[in-house]
């Protein structure tokens, strides 16, 4: 099969026949040409590529690897103008509250306001008593963190180990940072970069997994039909009967061990149904098309018809679905991580940033929220516009039907 395929693909004119010719552009080349002339699509593509490059660089440890370091004062406000008054602070115990007295008092006052309680109440795992206990200004890194942050205990551990390292030498801490600083004075810019690594990687990997499963299942079900189709359809209807989010949450509930790969597995294993439905329909449609019947008539095997003949003709659907799923999964990962069911606490993602930002907003510290939201909005908008452009380029008949 494989060599056969290669031989067919490699069919070129032998040198014996010297006729002037150029091999005509195939449909992929034509699609690429159409895409290239689409300004919006190309700009989106460049943005998406930039984000992916950022993800790779960050994953390789070349940028933002020190996101977890305290480089600014607590809640350092954002500035691009570089008013970089630096303060030297002993990094160990005084970190969260005392570094910025104003921040600490404001924070305290907010703890007792209604929305503080709301948030307290929403953190289901915590007992209400903890919120009340903040009235008596407890040692900062225990009660305060615990009261607002579900990840408090773990964070405290992380910080302790870090603090012990940092305690050896005083840290240079800036009063302002380009994107501002978070509660512990970490650079929000670096967190955003590191967070994009997690979110994009999860989105891409889970979408690839789901698309792969959906495509293979859909191709088999649609092509072979009969009882094979019935079996896959049963499987599909079972999975699609349980609302997607509920299924994710149920799996998240039983999987005690958290990690990036767990999230990818959850999203991938539950998200294949949409691709399946489409691919099944495509294969059903194409298998009765005349070119496939013609392939049957010339004696092409099932595998050959499925992969060599039909697949290239439906691959644009796969590509567009993949692209749509990436966007969906990036959003889903953000929600999962926000709720604490996603990536582990020592990994930063846009979701966990939003979680922290939710509480910071009440203090008027809007920058982490804005940073994570903007980064995500730019990426997702670019990805969606790119998807639309991709669909238009691959299937010009549909142009203008959907999207901008």
């Amino acid at each position, binding site marked *: 099969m494989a060599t056969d395929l290669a031989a067919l693909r490699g069919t070129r004119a032998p040198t014996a026949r010297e006729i002037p010719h150029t091999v005509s552009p195939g449909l992929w080349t034509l699609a690429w040409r159409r895409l290239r002339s689409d300004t919006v699509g190309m700009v989106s593509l460049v943005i998406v590529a930039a984000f992916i490059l950022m993800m790779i660089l960050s994953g390789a440890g070349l940028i933002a690897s020190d996101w977890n370091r305290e480089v600014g004062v607590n809640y350092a406000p954002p500035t691009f103008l570089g008013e970089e008054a630096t303060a030297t602070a002993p990094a160990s115990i005084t970190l969260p509250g005392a570094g910025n007295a104003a921040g600490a008092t404001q924070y305290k006052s907010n703890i007792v306001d209604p929305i503080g309680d709301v948030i307290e109440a929403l953190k*289901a795992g915590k007992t209400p008593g903890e919120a009340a206990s903040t009235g008596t200004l407890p040692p900062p890194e225990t009660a305060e963190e615990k009261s607002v942050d579900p990840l408090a205990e773990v964070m405290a551990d992380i910080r302790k180990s870090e603090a012990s390292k940092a305690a050896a030498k005083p840290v240079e801490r800036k009063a302002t940072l380009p994107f501002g600083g978070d509660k512990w004075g970490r650079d929000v810019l670096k967190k955003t970069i590191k967070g994009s690594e997690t979110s994009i990687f999860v989105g891409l990997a889970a979408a690839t997994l789901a698309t792969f499963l959906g495509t293979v299942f859909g191709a088999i079900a649609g092509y072979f039909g009969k009882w094979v189709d019935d079996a896959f359809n049963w499987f599909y209807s079972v999975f699609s009967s349980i609302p997607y989010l*509920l299924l994710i949450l149920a799996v998240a509930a039983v999987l005690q061990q958290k990690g990036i790969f767990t999230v990818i597995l959850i999203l991938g294993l539950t998200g294949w149904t949409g691709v399946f439905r489409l691919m099944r329909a495509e294969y059903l449609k194409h298998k009765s098309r005349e070119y496939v019947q013609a392939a049957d008539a010339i004696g092409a095997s099932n595998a050959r018809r499925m992969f060599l003949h039909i697949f290239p003709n439906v691959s644009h659907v796969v590509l567009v679905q993949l692209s749509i799923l990436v966007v969906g999964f990036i959003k889903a990962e953000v929600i999962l991580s926000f709720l604490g069911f996603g990536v582990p606490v020592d990994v930063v993602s846009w979701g966990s940033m939003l979680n922290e930002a939710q509480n910071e*907003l009440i203090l008027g510290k809007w920058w982490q929220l804005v940073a994570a939201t903007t980064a995500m909005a730019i990426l997702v908008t670019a990805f969606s516009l790119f998807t639309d452009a991709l669909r238009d380029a691959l299937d010009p008949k549909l142009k203008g039907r*959907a999207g901008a």
Partner: protein
Amino acid sequence: MSAYIIRRLWQMLPTMLGVVLLVFFIFNWVGGDPAYVLAGKISNQEQIDNIRRQLGVDQPYWVQLGIFLKQIVTADFGASWSTNERVSHILLTRLGPSLTVLVPLTILATLISIGLALAVAYVRGSFTDRMVMIVCTVGLSISILVYIIVFQYVFAYKLGWFPVQGWGDSFIQNLFVYASLPILIGLVVSIAPNLRLYRTFFLDEINQDYVRTARAKGVSENRIMWIHVLRNASIPIITFLMAELPGLLLGSFLIERFFSIPGIGREVILAVERSDFPVIKAITVYVAFATIATNLLADLTYKAVDPRVQLK
């Protein structure tokens, strides 16, 4: 017709059984012994032993499955592991608040989306159309979390137009006081995707031959859009809505969580946070059954609105 319904009901059984098996697989197989899950959550060893006995953890899997099936049929999932509240009571009491938010939200979102989508489809290809689509795309790319956080902060906390959170006993008060901001947020996040989808439904119909016939008959563009196109596009819209209904029950779980609305969605989140398996299992199974039932309902509705469909 009745033969069709009976056959469809009969065909629902394997799917329902599949759902039961999948949920059983997730919780009893992947989830494993509840003792490990409960360790640290319930300190009372006697209580843990009791739960293990109820689930038949030391019995073979088929016995456990039997217990699970019995729970489903009798709607008796025992008590919540966290609060000791009866699971059936949890389900019944949480349904009302969810519906108080969801019913008005769905109706409003559908009507507004259809109106806007028709208007946009009418001026298809124009500058307005492109701008609306771009706004939708950008709007869609912002996480629902951000809408909730910002709206709650600005409209409730800063401006004080709405209560920050809460829920009462009076239906009227709940609907008009506590549910209004959640409904507003729900509208903001659901109109963008609906508008995009409905617009494609309308555009698909506008390109059909019968629209050309209507024009050739001298029918005005307005009438073509509001009568001919809308009536045809209502078929995919209704089908889409029916398919979405069960998911909607949970769709607003984030809103319920932020606004402390004691609904099904918030209950799921709480249960997952507390590893409260009986509650999750019950909700999962029953919502799935509801989905299967709505699918049948969707097919029947489809038949009712589309004269081309012959159900056999």
